[in-house]
């Protein structure tokens, strides 16, 4: 017999905050998750602020709904976001399969694929810093770094994560793909390595700093003191 609650939790772990490139389960955004004996799942999500951007918030709720619904044994899924300025539009829209444009009538002109693409590209740039930085510290120079392919990098979570992000946006991700690539997938030349790595590090600092803000704000928002005040 499968452990349905564990499977549901694992499915939620595949849902990323697109801006932070981290699973919503690690970020403590999943406030509650209950599974009934008949396979009905109810998930409650929460975010660091009342004004977190509605487009990213929508993606997380919709992705969580899709991920949970796809788990074998789940008969019905209800995912709702609490304490958010657009809770009503988002929760109603996801439940009605209305898409983003349908959920925010008159306020949006397109679905969120392009937005998602932009943030996967950012994650793929930051990932190059995560993998290359230890090699720079070991003394590898621009010539060697420019020659490296993904096959040269020891397997790790970080490497798999980079491959996944690249695959999702159509960048080379197989073993013969260069470690350092431009946004269009072309190889970074030796002369371009220093600036490229500066950019990759800045991108990583940007994403990780946002993550730190969000974690701090979430912790404060749902602290005991905050609950006492409400």
């Amino acid at each position, binding site marked *: 017999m499968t452990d349905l609650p564990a499977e549901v939790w694992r499915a939620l772990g595949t849902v990323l905050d697109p801006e932070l490139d981290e699973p919503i389960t690690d970020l403590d955004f999943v406030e509650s998750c209950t599974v009934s004996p008949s396979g009905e799942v109810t998930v409650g999500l929460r975010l660091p*602020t*009342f004004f977190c951007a509605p487009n990213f918030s929508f993606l997380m709720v919709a992705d969580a709904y899709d991920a949970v619904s796809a788990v074998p044994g789940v008969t019905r899924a209800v995912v709702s976001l609490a304490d958010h300025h657009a809770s009503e539009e988002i929760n109603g829209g996801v439940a009605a399969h209305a898409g983003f444009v349908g959920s925010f009538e008159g306020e949006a002109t397109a679905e969120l694929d392009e937005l998602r693409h932009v943030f996967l590209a950012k994650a793929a740039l930051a990932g190059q810093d995560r993998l290359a930085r230890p090699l720079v510290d070991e003394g590898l120079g*621009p010539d060697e770094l420019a020659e490296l392919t993904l096959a040269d990098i020891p397997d790790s979570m970080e490497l798999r994560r980079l491959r996944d992000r690249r695959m999702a946006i159509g960048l080379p991700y197989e073993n013969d793909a260069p470690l350092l690539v431009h946004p269009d997938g072309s190889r970074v030349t030796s002369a371009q390595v220093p*600036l490229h790595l500066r950019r990759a590090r800045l*991108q990583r*600092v940007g994403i990780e*700093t946002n993550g730190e803000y969000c974690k701090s704000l979430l912790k404060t928002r749902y602290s005991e003191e905050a609950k006492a005040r409400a």
Partner: protein
Amino acid sequence: MYEKDGEKYFIVDAHSHFWDASKENWVEGKEQYAKGWIDCFYGYHQLGPPETHWDWEKYLKVTPEDFERDMFIEGHVDHAIFQSTYLKEWYKEGFNTIEQNAQLLDRWGDKLIVNGRFDPREGDAGMKQLEADAKKYNLKGVKLYTAEWNGASRGYKLTDPEAYEFLQAAQELGIKNVHVHKGPTIWPLDKDAFDVADVDHAATDFQGLNFIVEHVGLPRIEDFCFMAVQEPNVYAGLSVVVGGLMHARPKFFAKVMGELLFWVGEDKMTFGSDYNIWTPKWQVEGLVDWQMPDDDQFADYPRLTTASKKKILGLNAAKLYDIPVPAECQLPTSADEPMQPGEELVEDKAGAQA
């Protein structure tokens, strides 16, 4: 002025407020937004040192006496620049309007600059208001909050044709400094509202204006830096960077400062306390004491000297706003040529060292 170890620092708080988020000011039927907004600020407030935390009730609205004590008596601030944020959709009399800020001019007119604002969606009426405000307050700067709600609209971009008309008018009215604050919403909602590409275009097209990107473009610091390195009239407003990270996340504060020093440079960074999200005292004192950590991961970031701290804490903003600086607080040599430290990298002339 702040004095430490024989060094005198002239302090310009380039981003401060005098807001009214009291319950009496919440618009009926929009209470959840008014509360949500100030709760969000209060979350940031709590990222400061615990001994500086206030009760939520006090946080809603401070008195002129609180302001005087927090800024001028205890806060070391010589000159403060008020940035307005209207939010009249949620706050009856506005969250923080020019008029609210200007109440304090009678008492501390020699230490305060009141910045204006405009909203390109307000058309002719908005244009007339801007002209009137510019004349009345002799405006040198405006603050633009691009995520402001206005009727059914959730925001605007600086590149909207109407926004260009206002920028043109602002320039003709003698306004020099445009403080841009990005927020979570913009029309259409499917785009990234924090994207600073519109500031890039506007900065290129309006060379007579300086664009101070508040909160250094957070949460898009990378987009901001890539842009700022190429635009000589773009500045980094440090409010929220110091207040939100220096105490709560010191390692990330060091990284962000390192990146800003590298890409934007110490001549184009301006301090702002974001009062009363936080008080300036601990931020000024902390920044003066701060050093880049010795750890290897920070090794190739530029260092902050005493001179750089003087620039960031006041001299850079004093230059933007023509605020006279006492001789004892000036630097021995004037730094009239702003550095563009990352320039050689952008032009691909960098050395081999990554």
